[in-house]
């Protein structure tokens, strides 16, 4: 682990267990994320990735163990937290424009009963520029494509001016080009804030993140992204995996089940 131990921990998870009813989802999870780290969380479906994020943003409480975000309980850290959920708009008819949705990110900073100020508008505008959706501000949210909407959600998270940005599979609904520009944006952001991202996109893991956690019920490996060894991935994904890495060529993870001709 080539991590800068001198930096402040932004997230500290100790011995966390969580289960939905009888189904154990997480056990003995230990994870420390330090300032300006860019952590990619990978793992199979049902491995507890989204559950761990929900614990981090304070949506659910672990059955056991301790979670600290920015030195406090997750619930108290909300005003410094940006969260980008998976694309989940169920009501495409919802009467809201892009600007309305992005402004929502300022709510955590405003406090109850207060209206949005000119400053809030300015911060929202800046977040909108960062993800290049200036042309869409007046559009109704349901009229956008999935990828455009994902960028709106990222802008909403950025409008909070977070110290910690948490993204749950941000590129799942994006085409490759937009995905790349998102990663470029995250590369830019990681200079000033800490980023945690759940993803299935292995090429990103090897190219951009500064560390990787493999999660399958518990954390199997948490090291820098370049040295995730095939053994760990095999353990996590439960099947043999070839990890091809040659210099600047993106890493690829392929299942070795089938045979290629």
């Amino acid at each position, binding site marked *: 682990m080539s991590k800068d131990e001198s930096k402040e921990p932004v997230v500290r998870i100790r011995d966390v267990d969580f289960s939905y009813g009888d189904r154990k989802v997480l056990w003995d999870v230990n994870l420390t994320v330090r300032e300006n780290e860019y952590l990619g969380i990978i793992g199979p479906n049902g491995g507890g990735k989204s559950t761990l994020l929900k614990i981090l943003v304070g*949506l659910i409480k672990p059955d056991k163990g301790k979670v600290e975000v920015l030195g406090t309980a997750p619930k108290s850290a*909300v005003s410094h937290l940006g*969260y980008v959920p998976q694309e989940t*708009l169920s*009501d495409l*008819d*919802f009467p809201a424009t892009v600007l*309305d949705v992005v402004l929502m990110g300022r*709510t955590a900073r405003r406090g109850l009963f207060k209206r949005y100020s000119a400053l809030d508008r300015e911060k929202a505008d800046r977040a909108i520029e960062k993800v290049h959706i200036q042309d869409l501000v007046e559009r109704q949210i349901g009229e956008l494509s999935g990828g455009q909407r994902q960028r709106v959600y990222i802008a909403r998270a950025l409008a909070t001016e977070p110290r910690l940005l948490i993204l749950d599979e941000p590129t799942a609904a994006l085409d490759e080009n937009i995905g790349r520009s998102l990663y470029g944006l995250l590369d830019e952001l990681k200079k000033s804030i800490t980023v945690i991202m759940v993803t299935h996109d292995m090429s990103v893991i090897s190219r951009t993140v500064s560390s990787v956690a493999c999660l399958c019920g518990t954390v199997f490996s948490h090291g820098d992204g370049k040295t995730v060894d095939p053994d760990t991935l095999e353990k996590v994904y439960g099947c043999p995996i070839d990890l091809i890495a040659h210099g600047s060529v993106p890493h690829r993870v392929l299942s070795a089940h089938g045979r290629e001709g």
Partner: protein
Amino acid sequence: MLEVFRLEFMQNALAAGLLASIACGIIGTYVVVKRIVFISGGISHTAYGGVGLGYLLGISPLLGATGFALLASVIIGIAGLRLKTSSDTIIGMIWAVGMAFGILFVSMAPGATPELMTYLFGNVLMVPKSDVYLMVILVMVIVVVVVSLYKEFFAVSFDEEYAAVLGLPVGSLYLIMLALVAMTVIILMRVVGIIMVIALLTIPPATARLFVNRMVPMMVVSVIIGVVTTISGLISSYALNEMLGKPVPSGPIIILLTALVFILSLLSKKMFAGWYVVKESNSNV
């Protein structure tokens, strides 16, 4: 025609119609976007139990209805928050139990039960001044709460989970919203009646949504639609009274007019959209 508005009952009817339009425009928008139409139906029908209790105890039926509607909103709200399954079943139960109480209480009530039908089917021409005062207070509460919690209600309506991540007290906000629905039900009750409250909560916002795509404009347009249909409904009702020489309830007339406005809006939008497409394809040639 205008001199009829000098009559006191006509002034009360006018005030009741305006107040009802404001409440249904604002709260109806939430009912539609948050998809709590069935919950609102449950709250309004449960209120009949309170109407019956009012007759039984000899107090104002509207006051009894207010109590029952608020109680129903709390039970349905807490059931929705606590139960992991859908709260549909609970709403169905409360809906019927409330009605059952009402029917029982009314049958046990001493003497005649005047105006019973106006609570069920609504007659804005028979609203007494005291009810108008109660409606004013309820509308003021609704407006103040919605203005102060606008951004919170917006976040909760859009995505409850994200609202929770923002640190908002999602459960309490939901309960407050349902309490506002209960108040709106009370306001609408004298105008269109318990059974048809749902129509005035849904049709004006649904019509407004055809033309605007933001929340506040949707509320404003809903209020305007409500004002137009309640006032023209009450004038039609009055005119029919005079013509037929017997009372014609305003409730159903208002609902039918509102439905007509919705259908005409839908058609005009469709036609306009078609015209627009034709024009655009012409310009491409």
